[in-house]
């Protein structure tokens, strides 16, 4: 590399660091550095402009509106330019951070999460397409990053990191490999898996069908079923044959799909038969590996043998069995005692225009009492309302339980309400 280029790069780094007012991390400069966005790039793109506005608001809450106004009127000061320049550098870095957070959130991801998480599914199903859900979430992450909401960023980073860790586990890789075999060896697409899955009955599921059939038997059929099972040494029985018939009927759709699938790929009757059996075996292995319930029972059965016949000291078994009862489960809802929420009852009716106006009136009186030179009639209404709403919001946040899904949602609702109320409060009849 030429020396001039090195010097140029060093100079550029210094310029960026000076604008930001801090040292750049290694990932923020050099090969991995994000695209340096110029002000026209930002201001001519409505989405970027909106996000840039949010960043400016969070960095310079008292001056942002003024800077934008002067920028619009082409009356920017040197100080404004310095602030815009600093914000522009910060914006480039934050856009890259938001992109990184949003990577991997696509329609497939939404589909997968909806499949595994009932609460998420309930909400994502309200949006027409998974792609749109992904966009809404990504947009949110952009705003979160611009507003410097480190709590949400940390939680997302932590969740993504954790998922990556477990995805690199042996068990996950095994399931992935089996799923890959279904695709590579048998040519099935992901979407066909649910039909294939229906075609595989685990022993437990088969037992369940048999038990249900048996429960409808009267005394004589029950007696005959048992008699036949003993005589044939468990090879067959009335209920077993009935369960097989029922399962076979259930499997018909899967078999039909598999037949059509393999025939369309040019396989003959015999190859189709063996390939179908092979594919179902793989599904079986996935099902058995993926179902914690089955593994739990397997483990408990071993524990039972240990406890009953081999060891009088079952402490080890108990300890292991206790752990196997279930791993950690992420809670969507904050499970603090209801008493905490009952205390919040008083916060109802806060989000009305009348209440906000009444509170503003009190706030202005308080400001006058604290500072006799404060005059509401001549004050900058926009700044006063911003300060008032900020105080009101932080007071509100303190009244809520500290953490949890609903705490976060209520804070967002309050924030949204406050933003919508600002113009009305500036016009309210309380300033004179």
């Amino acid at each position, binding site marked *: 590399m030429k020396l001039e280029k090195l010097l140029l790069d060093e100079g550029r780094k210094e310029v960026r660091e000076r604008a930001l007012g801090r040292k750049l991390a290694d990932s923020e400069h050099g090969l991995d550095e994000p695209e340096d966005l110029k002000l026209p790039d930002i201001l001519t793109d409505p989405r970027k402009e909106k996000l840039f506005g949010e960043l400016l608001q969070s960095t310079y809450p008292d001056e942002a509106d003024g800077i934008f106004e002067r920028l619009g009127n082409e009356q920017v000061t040197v100080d404004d330019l310095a602030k815009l320049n600093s914000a522009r550098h910060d914006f480039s870095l934050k856009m890259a951070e938001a992109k990184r957070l949003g990577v991997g959130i696509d329609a497939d991801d*939404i589909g997968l*999460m909806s499949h595994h*998480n009932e*609460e*998420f599914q*309930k*909400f994502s199903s*309200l*949006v027409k397409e998974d792609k749109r*859900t992904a966009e*809404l*979430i990504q*947009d*949110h992450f952009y*705003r979160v990053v611009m507003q410097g909401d480190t709590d*949400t960023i940390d939680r*997302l980073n932590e*969740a993504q990191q*954790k*998922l990556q*860790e*477990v995805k690199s*586990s042996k*068990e996950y890789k095994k399931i992935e490999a089996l799923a890959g075999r279904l695709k590579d060896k048998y040519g099935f697409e992901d979407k066909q898996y649910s039909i294939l899955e229906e075609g595989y009955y685990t022993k437990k599921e088969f037992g369940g069908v048999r038990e249900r059939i048996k429960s409808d038997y009267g005394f004589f059929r029950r007696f005959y079923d048992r008699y036949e099972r003993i005589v044939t040494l468990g090879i067959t029985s009335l209920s077993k044959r009935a369960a097989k018939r029922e399962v076979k009927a259930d499997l018909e759709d899967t078999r039909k799909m598999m037949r059509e699938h393999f025939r369309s790929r040019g396989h003959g009757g015999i190859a189709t038969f063996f390939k179908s059996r092979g594919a179902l075996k793989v599904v079986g292995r996935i099902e058995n*590996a993926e179902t*914690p319930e089955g*593994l739990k029972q397997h483990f408990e059965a071993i524990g039972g*043998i*240990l406890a009953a016949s*081999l*060891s009088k000291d079952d402490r*080890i*078994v108990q300890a*292991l069995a206790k752990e*196997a009862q279930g*791993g*950690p*489960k*992420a809670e969507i*809802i904050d499970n603090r005692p*209801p008493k905490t*929420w009952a205390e*919040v*009852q008083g916060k109802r*009716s*806060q*989000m*009305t*225009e009348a209440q906000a106006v009444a509170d503003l009136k009190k706030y202005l009186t308080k400001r006058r009492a604290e500072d006799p030179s404060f005059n509401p009639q001549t004050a900058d209404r926009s700044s006063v309302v911003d300060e008032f709403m900020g105080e009101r919001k932080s007071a509100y946040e303190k009244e809520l339980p500290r953490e949890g899904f*609903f705490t*976060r*949602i*209520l804070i*967002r*609702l*309050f924030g*949204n*309400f406050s933003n*919508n109320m600002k113009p*009305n409060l500036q016009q309210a009849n309380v300033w004179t």
Partner: protein
Amino acid sequence: MDITALGEIHDELIAQLARGNESGAMDYLRSRFKDLPEEMQGEILAELYIDALNEESARIETIGKIQEQGVAALKVLEVLKAELKKEAGKTKA
């Protein structure tokens, strides 16, 4: 966006939560989802998405743990079997 609707949603959520009815609050939020501004819809989905990510990790982790424990139990079983055989050998002798 209708400011009154925001207030209504806020008050009803608090009422449900104060009664300890969190699932009711979730159902209510779902029923009013479309009345919320798009920004808030995104926020709710993102919150649930993060929770779903955590749950997914926990699910995969649990499978791994149970498998490990199953292997541990099998090892204990092997050791105890060997001990019993030894005991049986001694008794015969």
